[in-house]
């Protein structure tokens, strides 16, 4: 039970280290880095590695942005499994991620509540 916290910390930290290396060594912009990680999460789910990875690391695998690609791919593949090729197309309209909905809702609430400040 406790070990899940250690694996979450270490795995989550390591995914961020990959992101930092993409920015500092590969000289990618933050946007390119995040997109690369999302695509990586999607591909990893396609070959069936991401789910066991979540079982191992818990939030260490679901909190980094890679899980976003995983969630979307997982939804699309579940539909494809049920309905075949046409399921890939129809499934695309059903997949979503709680991250997007939450970001939209809280983005609007944030805009209502706050004003940006130009401090250091």
């Amino acid at each position, binding site marked *: *039970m*406790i070990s*899940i916290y250690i694996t979450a910390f270490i795995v989550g930290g390591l995914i961020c280290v990959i992101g930092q290396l993409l920015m500092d060594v590969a000289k990618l912009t933050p946007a390119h880095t995040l997109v690369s990680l999302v695509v990586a999460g999607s591909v990893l789910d396609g070959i069936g590695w991401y789910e*066991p*990875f979540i*079982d*191992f690391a818990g939030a260490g695998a679901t909190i980094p942005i890679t899980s976003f690609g995983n969630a979307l791919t*997982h939804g699309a593949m579940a539909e494809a499994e049920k309905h075949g090729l046409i399921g890939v197309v129809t499934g695309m309209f059903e997949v979503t991620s709680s991250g997007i909905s939450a970001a939209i809702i809280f983005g609007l609430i944030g805009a209502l509540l706050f004003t940006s400040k130009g401090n250091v």
Partner: protein
Amino acid sequence: MKKLSILLIILGLLTGCSEKGTYIKNTTSQDENSVEKVIMNNEHVKLAKVLLFEDELLAGIRVNTFSRFQKKSIATDIKKKLEKEYPDLKITVSADSKILLETEKLIRKKGEKDYQKKIDKIKSIEKEQT
């Protein structure tokens, strides 16, 4: 850095106290020995809580840290073996900590009232997983 090391020490201490083994509560006339045998034979399992009630067998298991990668197949494997041992029982095995937690709660519960309802609920939660 200092905060982190304190955190790691606390986590390390907590890890040392976590429980191990197989706990079985049997409210039926079934023989529970082979349950323990099946579960303990699996080297990946660290902790298991099992409840036998009427025609239900509910098992929540926890696997070793690095076995978590295969925890779903470990649970399926144990389920298959138990099904062979107890062909007339409805068997639910899960490596999800929620199932372990709920099974444990049921085991601790005094009366056998609502058992069936609770077991059905746990089974439905378990099914929700994709």
